[in-house]
């Protein structure tokens, strides 16, 4: 039940990478929401969510991501998830979010 986040802006590729470590759940999801809002208002660019070190996500976490996706889409920006583990990928697939948040190439 801990969530650590590291946001780095990649000048070369002109996007944010937000690396998430731990668990996104009903207790920690608000921290992800705040961090996504913070970086997107700092620099209104695409965001890559790196889920390499994410061990768990629940529907409140997915809700936060859907919210950010919607707000960013309005402004013409992309939100993309990379490196999701099997269990996280399963939830993205069940909910159809893989279709809009995961791309083979960016």
């Amino acid at each position: 039940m801990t969530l650590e986040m590291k946001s780095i802006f990649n000048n070369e590729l002109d996007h944010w990478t937000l690396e998430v470590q731990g668990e996104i759940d009903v207790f920690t999801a608000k921290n992800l929401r705040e961090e996504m809002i913070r970086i997107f208002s700092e620099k209104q660019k695409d965001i890559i969510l790196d889920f390499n070190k994410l061990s768990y996500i629940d529907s409140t976490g997915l809700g936060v991501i859907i919210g950010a996706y919607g707000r960013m889409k309005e402004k013409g920006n992309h939100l993309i998830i990379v490196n999701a583990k099997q269990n996280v990928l399963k939830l993205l697939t069940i909910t159809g979010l893989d279709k809009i948040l995961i791309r083979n190439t960016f």
Partner: protein
Amino acid sequence: MADLLKFSIPGKPEYVGVVRLAVSSVANRAGFDIEAIEDIKVAVAEACNNAILHGIHDNCCNYEVVFTLDEKKLTIEIDDNGRGYDTVNYQEPDLSNPKEGGLGIFIIKALMDEVQINSNTGKGTTITMTKYI
């Protein structure tokens, strides 16, 4: 004979992690494989979220998580004495048009073999889910 485990948990987000760990441990003991353990953990956590976010008012009370375990299946009941809701009006989420909410029950149904919800406005909600071993 079936084994019964009962947990009474404060209706606060910070304790759902305790339930998740306990659920994983019970499911592991029951002999489920890693993927099934994960499914059960997610499904139970979603039901706990609902008890906390929709059922119970302002951290007022505890909710219960009851496990019944026999050789063939694990049944888990999540029970709150909260607000309750009208299950008849439940609408499945439209996956082609994602919204911030409304995924919990859908996910539970996708991950468990049987799901039954009993809710009474003003009295509370019981969701019962089963996974076969």
